[in-house]
């Protein structure tokens, strides 16, 4: 009807429409003549209705406007369907227009008239523009494409997209160009996402991808909304260059990996405290990374201190923390979660934020318990060896002096006869000399380190006989519990030395229990590994018999334990015992190529363990052969 309606009727019709509307007739020469306009068009175009109606466009409108309109009308005729475009007109400033043209067809299907509705979208457009400029300033690309099977993939608008994609400004940036600029991999990822969104009737599509550009590869993050509007599909969105951010993330990840690996390799623990000097979880790494972290959340360092042991550098640690100073290699006894104690060496640095506020400490912690124990052992061995050396030298000198003393006193006693008043004096001199001789002999036994060849004897038998003898001969009564395994193994030891060792240990144990206590004597076989702990004790790898003599007496503290094997060390009152008993045990055990160790605590009795190297079956016959040849 619009096609055939007379101009007046048309006018009435379009007057009712709220937007500016015009209708042009398509003339044979490709010219266009205004047939009807409504009132609102005059405001927009600045030309009166009368000036427009009935005139060709080139006569009614300014030349450039007419030219632009004419081209669009011609496109509409050529397209044969509704057509929308962005236009503008200058009328007291630039007005931005969104013009939709609808062709009106006759029965034959020819376009005879076109109805045009120009909408003033200046405000919207200006707002849009401001948004786009802002995005451009922020390095963001903003874009809008038509998509879908009926669309031409035309770019509706874009800002900043070409440089982001590495395309020149005048390159076409329709959807095809945009997709074409992507790598195959990115395109293959994006296409199904967009199709899914279209199928779903709309939705957000996000993708980060690598984009090759002439300036080198960049990493882009794009986010768009697919809008399905009846038959038309658009995608609107923005793209940001995240290359720097990516590089930063990668560098951060790499650094963190390095840190985690170093932390795993390190046998130290990491710790961190807050501004109240209480432990907090350590960030960045944890148990799952194979890194040891101190489990002490909420506790202060003083809570970890084991009060049973000397505090060592604890005061210095607390002073440093109070002064917010860094500290290095300070030692204190730390209570472990299982109740045992380890000696640790800690280092720490204070942390501050940008404002200079104290945040707490960060640091490392090394368990030096094993190292300390090893050093103690080494020190002990060296001390014993030094004592042995000195004792040996001293003994030699004394022996040379004691010989004439005893010999001449004995001769002189023979010479003076029984009636002489000198007789008892001379006897006393000789007796005293012999007592000195025994002491020196005891000291020499302590310092003995020989491995004199000795036919192997069955150790268990020798020990049983020695225990029976010791318990029977010594004065005090006590309960003796035996758990001596009947080991068939032999050891290259003298039965007399076994007896001496057993006698001295049993005597020591009976002294500790003071009568009425329980003595345990045990013998078992152990395999000593060739590890650092065994080496520190001077024990070669192999099979050993362990003679254990334990008592439930008063026990010994750490200070006594440190000196227990020293010659002449005794806790007994003066005149009772020489303090040589245990040093002799030590000397004999080491002479065998074994060792003696003691464990004790005040009130908890004591247990002595003597390690005796056993003769391996194959070696015993070999030993006999060697003896024959060495002579």
């Amino acid at each position, binding site marked *: 009807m619009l096609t055939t309606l007379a101009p007046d009727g048309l006018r009435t019709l379009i007057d009712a429409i709220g937007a500016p509307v015009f209708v042009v007739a398509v003339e044979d020469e490709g010219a266009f003549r205004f047939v009807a306009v409504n009132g609102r068009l005059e405001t927009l175009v600045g030309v009166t209705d009368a000036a427009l109606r009935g005139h060709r466009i080139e006569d009614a409108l300014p030349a450039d406007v007419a030219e632009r309109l004419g081209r669009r009308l011609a496109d509409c005729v050529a397209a044969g369907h509704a057509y929308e475009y962005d236009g503008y007109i200058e009328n007291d400033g630039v007005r931005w227009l969104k013009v939709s043209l609808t062709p009106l067809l006759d029965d034959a299907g020819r376009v005879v008239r076109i109805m045009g509705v120009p909408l003033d979208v200046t405000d919207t457009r200006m707002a849009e523009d401001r948004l786009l400029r802002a995005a451009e300033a922020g390095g963001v690309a903003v874009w809008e494409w038509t998509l879908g099977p009926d669309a031409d993939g035309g770019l509706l608008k874009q800002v900043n997209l070409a440089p982001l994609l590495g395309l020149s400004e005048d390159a076409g940036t329709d959807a095809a160009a945009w997709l074409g600029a992507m790598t195959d991999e990115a395109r293959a990822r994006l296409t199904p996402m967009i199709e899914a969104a279209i199928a779903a009737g709309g939705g957000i599509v996000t993708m980060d991808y690598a984009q090759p550009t002439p300036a080198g590869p960049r990493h882009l993050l794009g986010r768009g909304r697919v809008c399905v509007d009846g038959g038309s599909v658009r995608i609107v969105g923005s793209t940001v260059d995240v290359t720097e951010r990516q590089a930063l993330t990668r560098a951060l990840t790499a650094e963190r990996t390095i840190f985690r690996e170093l932390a795993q390799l390190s046998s130290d623990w990491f710790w961190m405290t807050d501004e109240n000097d209480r432990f907090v979880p350590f960030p960045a790494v944890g148990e799952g990374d194979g890194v040891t972290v101190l489990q002490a959340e909420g506790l202060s360092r003083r809570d970890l201190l084991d009060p049973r042991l000397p505090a060592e550098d604890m005061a210095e640690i607390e002073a440093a923390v109070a002064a917010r100073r860094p500290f290095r290699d300070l030692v204190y006894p730390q209570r472990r979660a299982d109740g045992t104690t380890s000696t640790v060496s800690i280092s720490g640095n204070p942390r501050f934020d940008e404002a200079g506020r104290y945040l707490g400490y960060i640091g490392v912690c090394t368990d030096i318990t094993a190292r300390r124990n090893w050093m103690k052992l080494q020190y002990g061995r060296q001390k014993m060896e030094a004592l042995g050396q000195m004792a040996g030298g001293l003994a*030699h000198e004394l022996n040379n002096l004691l010989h*004439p003393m*005893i010999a001449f006193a004995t001769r002189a006693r023979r010479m003076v006869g029984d009636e002489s008043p000198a007789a008892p004096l001379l006897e006393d001199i000789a007796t005293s000399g012999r007592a000195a001789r025994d002491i020196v002999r005891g000291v020499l036994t302590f310092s003995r380190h*020989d491995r004199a060849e000795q036919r192997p004897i069955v150790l268990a038998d020798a020990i049983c006989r020695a225990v029976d003898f010791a318990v029977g001969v010594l004065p005090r009564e006590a309960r003796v519990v035996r758990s001596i395994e009947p080991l068939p193994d032999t050891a290259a030891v003298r039965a007399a030395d076994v007896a001496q060792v057993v006698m001295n240990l049993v005597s020591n144990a009976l002294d500790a229990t003071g009568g009425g206590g329980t003595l345990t004597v045990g013998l078992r076989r152990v395999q000593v590994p060739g590890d650092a702990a065994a080496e520190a004790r001077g024990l070669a790898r192999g099979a050993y018999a362990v003679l254990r003599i334990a008592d439930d007496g008063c026990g010994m503290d750490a200070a006594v334990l440190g000196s227990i094997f020293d010659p002449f060390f005794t806790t007994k009152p003066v005149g009772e015992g020489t303090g040589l008993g245990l040093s002799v045990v030590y000397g004999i055990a080491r002479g065998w190529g074994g060792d003696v160790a003691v464990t004790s605590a005040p009130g908890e009795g004591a247990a002595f363990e003597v390690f005796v190297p056993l003769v391996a079956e194959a070696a015993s016959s070999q030993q006999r052969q060697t003896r024959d040849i060495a002579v």
Partner: protein
Amino acid sequence: MEDQPLVRKAVRGALEDAGFGVVEAGDGEEGLSAARRDSFDLAIVDIWMPRVDGIEFLKQVRAIHADLPVIVISGGGPDAPLEVKAHLAQAHGAHEVLFKPFEDDELMAAVDRALG
């Protein structure tokens, strides 16, 4: 042979009381010289002596006097454990080892064993 004069005197005394003739030497070298000059029935030798010690004497005296019985006396030493030296002594043909300080009757029993 003994570098400590008092020990020499004590041993000498015990031997003379038993009727032996005694020649003293202060170290192994003097002892070897004496062995070259005269013949002896027995040598009593300390291990640790300056210049030529007991072990050296043992090695060298065999060239002069093939089966001279030797009793070694020892006081222990600062540089080697007691029994290693004693063992060595026996390995080189010493009849017996006595450890100072020993009683006179111990010495005489050893002398009897060495001579008999």
